[in-house]
């Protein structure tokens, strides 16, 4: 039974990110994994080893696509060539939903390859929602938009980040990929209460959850995906699951990647929380 209308994939359970250092282990040991999340851009090529490897994974596992460069928040229209390549990949993976970030990263044809923060304005919300709708219409697959970690805020902003997220997803009528670690990181960098954020997210739109580790510096926290998940983030995850209900959850580990078994064990810690009874009143 789906927890909500954007979360028809409750049975997906706990996934992990598919990363190159784990390929050999996966093909040799064939571990039981609920699903793998792939970075779409790594496979938006015309041929060669990346696609051959992906095809081998698809023979045995469920795969969900996660993008890093669609840039829904770009002031400009989405890149048509990017969408064309993405659609080719969507047909190959048959991803049940597709996610990318609530951010921008390119302007006037120049790319930063980063997830840059949005000014939280009504104009930005309107443009971002238009881009999400354009992508959904072209790709013909449900879309979930992910909140990012941020290190800067704009004088121009007219609302909080969670109000902006709500404004965008309502206008686009899309799902949310709720990154609990990103909320934690941004709450440290911008001094807000992460539980206020969590409690403001429309639970009925959350299609997927991300958890990850981060790095703490003297004056800010950086979203590095190179550590285990810390306890305060697990507590936030527990709280989120209680509000939202069982939701496909993925552990991100992208740098200083340990063995497959270590990453998998870290992800499976989520089992302790994922089937917790949901709160009646949201």
């Amino acid at each position, binding site marked *: 039974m789906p927890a909500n209308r954007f979360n028809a994939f409750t049975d997906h359970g706990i996934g992990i990110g598919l990363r190159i250092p784990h390929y050999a282990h996966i093909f040799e040991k064939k571990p039981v994994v609920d699903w793998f999340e792939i970075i779409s851009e790594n496979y938006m090529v015309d041929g060669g080893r990346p696609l051959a490897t992906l095809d081998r994974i698809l023979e045995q596992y469920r795969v969900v696509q996660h993008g890093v460069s669609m840039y829904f928040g770009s002031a400009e229209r989405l890149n048509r060539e990017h969408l064309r390549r993405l659609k080719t990949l969507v047909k190959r993976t048959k991803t049940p939903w597709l996610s990318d970030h609530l951010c921008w990263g390119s302007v006037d044809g120049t790319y930063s390859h980063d997830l840059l923060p949005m000014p939280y304005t009504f*104009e930005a919300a309107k443009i971002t929602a238009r881009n999400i709708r354009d992508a959904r219409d072209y790709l013909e697959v449900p879309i979930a938009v992910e909140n990012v970690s941020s290190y800067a805020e704009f004088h121009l902003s007219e609302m909080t980040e969670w109000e902006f997220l709500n404004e965008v997803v309502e206008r686009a009528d899309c799902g949310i990929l709720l990154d609990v670690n990103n909320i934690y990181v941004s709450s440290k960098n911008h001094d807000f209460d992460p539980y206020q954020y969590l409690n403001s997210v429309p639970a009925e739109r959350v299609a997927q959850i991300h958890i990850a580790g981060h790095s703490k510096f003297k004056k800010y926290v950086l979203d590095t995906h190179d550590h285990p998940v810390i306890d305060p983030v697990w507590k936030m995850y527990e709280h989120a699951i209680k509000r939202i209900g069982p939701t496909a959850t993925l552990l991100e580990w992208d740098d200083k990647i340990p063995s497959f078994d270590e990453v998998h064990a870290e992800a499976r810690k989520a089992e302790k929380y994922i089937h917790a009874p949901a709160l009646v009143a949201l």
Partner: protein
Amino acid sequence: MTLLEVQRRMAHAILQPLTGSDRIGPKTDAEFIKPNDRLTAAERLEIYSRSYWFRVLDSLYDDFPGLRAVLGDRTFHRLSRAYLTECPSQSFTLRNLGSRLEDWLRRNPKFAGSRHALALDMARLEWAHIEAFDNAAEKVLGPEDLLELGPRFRVRLQPYIRLLALQYPVDDLRIQVNRASDERGAASNAALKQRHRDMTKRVSSSKSEQIFLAVHRLDFTVYYRRINAEEYRLLSALSDGKPIAKAIRRAFEDSSASTEQQRSMLEKWFAVWAELGWLCPPARRKQG
């Protein structure tokens, strides 16, 4: 200020080169960013700027190990910063970051000094390597198709094949660089230093020698196959869409090979190309 204006201001701020000590420029426009009690507006932008520069520099560093060996790490770093300042990424993927490096280096010889020609050849080879790795593979012409080849027949090369005419044998150098990199994990510091000295010596002693290469892949691994001038010219002509008879004429234009030798070479080449799956049917013309 519109969204587009904000994004242009922020992109301009974070894409400008970092200072020598990897800090954001002191005159950076950061007025549109809010400071907090720990970081100024410029320091907040600096997090993004450093992240941008480290990411693109790392990407170029990983993609051009041979060019690094030719120039040395410090010169390569200087070149990378200058190149990326003038030619920032114009693609959604970092794979394409080095696509303009050869052209840029041709226009900016001072960044390679006395090793300019060697550096250019290495940059060409390493970009060809990237393309050979993941460009498309199309349907292969089978032996039965090859039996029917006539003089007017056209064929195409696999999109992943790159043909290079080079002034230096950079293929050997690149293979040695790869080997050194593979062995790095297991080697002691002393052994690593010795290898670095060997590599520097090898680069310094590289002598000019015209070679022809087909950069291709087999079983998802990229290979550099040395070919002779006639085979290079024939493959280039086929790749340009010339009919087979015309391509063969071009291949042997300045050749001293006898007719018998030419026939023998052609038989051998077509057999090898068939075995490697290099030839594809001609592209279909669009109707209407």
